[in-house]
């Protein structure tokens, strides 16, 4: 009985923080002619409501693709259509074709913010609550503390309720997918994940671990018996869900191709804006964009991405386990973020979600990662005048994690799940005993650098010759942190199974 009171309180705290952040400015507020993501979402409501389905993704006199053309899969379009019906009911001026461009008012802002809150409440928050309740081998209090920390994660709150996006929908669906697949409801889980992919194509970052995990499950059940049946069922579910979402666009080949062209803009280049990506950080030293031609850049990023995530995926296929699945989600998403093509800085949220899921396993490293992920979006948040909420939410999140998990006491090798790794290393280097201390120092350095950079970016003006100095520094520092985390998570995945095997041998 107590648990439900506390969980309700946690959800209410999450909702209060979200709505309080939403009182702030949004992306592109008062900045004609292009405005920002807020205007993009409003424009999509206008387009989907006023134009027939066939014209949504095509350039026409009514639909100028240069001005925030639709570049998310059909489910986003349907969601915008739903919001547009509600908007029509309240005030048709908000979605009038052509005349509503750049419409801004208090009432409209309230409406848009409410749509985000409702979507969050219906999809993401129940998934988080259910996930925390289903955690095993953890006391009730820890489950509730876990839910509090996940709901207080600043990155998602600031992007969804500040900058203005609907990430909670796609991340929520992905979380339902993880939940379903971990609890052996494979069909429902894969259906939920297909919905996630059809909402935002960036969810493809998570697709490989899902594929490998389910394939591994099929192999385990035996490919000649139950496993094959499961495989067929899963394939049917995936195909059916895709057909359902893309139905209006499968009528003509040109429709499908156009949508794909909008979703995967390979013409745009290796990276856009400043992102904590390898390519962006590399370009500080070596201008890859200018040296190599476009198709070679594409192939190079493709190869590097796949090489970096292959070991974890193979391991997952051969030894499917719930824990391995979650860690592989992290490492795959991180590999994609660091090495892939046309990555936005908001895509770090796709890595943050799986890291939130492993918060109870490795609280120290997860908290560190989540702090860095919020910091990596600093230039974007500053552009949207979200400094105050970001500082406040980050501090709240940090305090919540420190008190719930007492993270500073969990920095031993065993707590960091590096025991087997350090044992293996010690076979060759007997003096390698100070791993946890190194990690603690690195944490301290990282936090101090982040705080200093934040202060510098806020208070100082960059020199005239290097106007992007601070943003680039932020990206560079975040990229270094992310590389470290990539190595760390891969180590956990690779050495974890060995530990399992050794233990089995001993027992």
């Amino acid at each position, binding site marked *: 009985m107590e648990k439900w009171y506390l969980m309700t309180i946690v959800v209410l705290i999450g*909702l209060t923080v979200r709505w309080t952040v939403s009182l702030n400015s949004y992306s592109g507020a008062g900045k004609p002619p292009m405005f920002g993501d807020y205007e993009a979402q409003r424009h999509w409501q206008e387009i989907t409501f006023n134009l027939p389905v066939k014209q949504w993704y095509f350039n026409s006199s009514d639909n100028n693709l240069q001005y925030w053309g639709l570049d998310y899969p059909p489910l986003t379009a349907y969601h915008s259509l739903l919001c547009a019906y509600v908007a029509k009911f309240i005030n048709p001026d908000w979605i009038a074709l052509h005349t509503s461009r750049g419409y801004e008012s208090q009432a409209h802002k309230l409406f848009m913010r409410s749509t985000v*809150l409702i979507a969050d409440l219906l999809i993401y928050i129940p998934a988080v609550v259910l996930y925390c309740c289903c955690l095993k081998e953890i006391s009730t209090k820890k489950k509730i503390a876990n839910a509090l920390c996940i709901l207080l994660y600043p990155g998602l709150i600031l992007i969804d309720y500040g900058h203005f996006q609907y990430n909670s929908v796609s991340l929520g669906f992905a979380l339902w997918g993880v939940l379903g697949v971990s609890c052996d409801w494979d069909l429902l889980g894969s259906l939920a994940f297909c919905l996630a992919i059809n909402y935002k194509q960036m969810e493809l970052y998570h697709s490989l671990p899902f594929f490998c995990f389910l394939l591994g499950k099929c192999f385990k059940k035996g490919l000649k018996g139950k496993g094959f049946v499961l495989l067929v069922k899963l394939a049917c579910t995936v195909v059916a869900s895709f057909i359902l979402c893309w139905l209006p666009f499968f009528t003509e080949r040109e429709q499908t191709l156009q949508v794909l062209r909008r979703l995967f803009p390979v013409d745009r280049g290796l990276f856009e804006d400043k992102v904590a990506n390898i390519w962006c950080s590399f370009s500080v030293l070596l201008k890859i964009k200018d040296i190599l031609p476009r198709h070679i850049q594409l192939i190079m990023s493709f190869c590097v991405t796949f090489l970096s995530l292959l070991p974890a995926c193979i391991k997952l296929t051969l030894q499917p386990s719930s824990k391995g699945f979650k860690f592989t989600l992290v490492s795959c998403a991180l590999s994609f973020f660091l090495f892939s093509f046309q990555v936005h800085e908001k895509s770090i949220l796709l890595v943050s979600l799986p890291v939130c899921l492993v918060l109870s396993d490795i609280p120290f490293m997860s908290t560190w990662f989540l702090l860095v992920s919020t910091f990596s979006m600093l230039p974007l948040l500053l552009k949207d005048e979200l400094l105050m909420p970001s500082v406040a939410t980050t501090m709240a999140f940090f305090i919540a994690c420190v008190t719930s998990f007492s993270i500073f006491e969990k920095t031993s090798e065993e707590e960091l799940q590096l025991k087997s790794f350090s044992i293996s290393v010690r076979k060759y280097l007997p003096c390698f005993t100070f791993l946890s201390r190194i990690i603690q120092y690195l944490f301290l350095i990282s936090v101090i650098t982040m705080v200093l950079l934040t202060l510098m970016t806020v208070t100082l003006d960059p020199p005239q010759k290097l106007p992007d100095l601070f943003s680039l520094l932020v990206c560079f520092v975040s990229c270094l942190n992310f590389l470290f985390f990539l190595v760390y998570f891969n180590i956990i995945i690779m050495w974890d199974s060995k530990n399992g095997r050794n233990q089995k041998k001993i027992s």
Partner: protein
Amino acid sequence: TGNWRSLHSTDFEVHRNWLAITHSLPISQWYYEATSEWTLDYPPFFAWFEYILSHVAKYFDQEMLNVHNVNYSSSRTLLFQRFSVIFTDALFVYAVHECCKCIGGKEVGKELTEKPKFILSVLLLWNFGLLIVDHIHFQYNGFLFGLMLLSIARLFQKRHMEGAFLFAVLLHFKHIYLYVAPAYGVYLLYQYQGLWSQTNLSSVLPPISCVALGRLLHLSTSGELIVNMWYLSDKNNTKYLFTLIGLKLKFLDPNKIPKASMTSGLVQQFQHTVLPSVTPLATLICTLIAILPSIFCLWFKPQGPRGFLRCLILCALSSFMFGWHVHEKAILLAILPMSLLSVGKAGDASVFLILTTTGHYSLFPLLFTAPELPIKILLMLLFTIYSISSLKTLFRWSFTLVTQAGVQWCDLHSLQLLPTGFKQFSSLSFSSSGITGTPSPLLVNFVFLVETGFSMLVRLVLNSQPQVI
């Protein structure tokens, strides 16, 4: 701080104006300045407080300190004002810490979140009313309530002189605390009768008044000052007296009622059409009659600091119900001290829950814009759910006693039976919830809350036996 961009009330302009007045004008002009409609109407210590703040304010935005910049508001001004409230809340946090030290209470569980001190500190620090009044609507109640709670804590710790001093200082910050002055007066008089001469204690108040009013007194006649500060004649009637007797108006034919005369602006003057207009003297008499029983008990049946606290709460409530020119925010004067009692006994906890829920709900009209609606609902839900669940957990044993009691109603405070007339009521309620097995906890709790509230009311009327401290 996420709320720092939220819509702010007129109180924001009020305080900005006072910053401007105290910063740019000599003291002789402070209470006469009337460029803005929001004239200085708090006692001198608050004016000094604004003066000190204005010296920090000039580093944020010099323009806000100009008296002629009526309705001036920039983001820096907003930032400064909001942070000043947060900063001065430090005193409130310290006071809560002191209160937690001296409030005992049974330690049911070993977990931190189940200890009375933890629950009390959350109930005080996250008090919904204080949050929305101070940090959204904008006022400085945090540090004023800090002073009051600190003085209460000192009285609990038997440091009477300090308590009296703190209360005297508080009175000179905001005169609304006169509502609870009788409780202080009678309690301290009782403590010091026979042991010390009364002049010793009364020697505390005059020096402070002199310090506060000193410079002002020699510059002008104090009579005018008091009129300015204590606005006797011009302002409106109490809304709550209105509602008590206003139900009759529902049955009147709207066409027959002549239009009430009203002055423009937020402060309105109402002439009653059916009932006689209420004068300040009448409200004073009603208030005095209402606080008389509790003062009587405090003097003749003293129960130590807890008795004083009860008397204080009753004085605050009586003044709230019957006083002249009462703001809805004054309900906090009763709610915050009541929190101190709520973690002590189950009966007090149930009364506290009723008082705090209705009191906080009555503050809803303070935030009337659409964006703030979800915030006030969410915060209200948060506080209500937390207070109910934590107090229920704390007094878990008393609830199980109730479910097992069956027909006979055992008084939890002094283990005495209520008058026989109430036995039937209790037995009916329990039988309605099911005869076999334990009744559903929610229903039992609700029944318990209603019955305890009722029994408290009866006790007040019958003036029954004193409770065990």
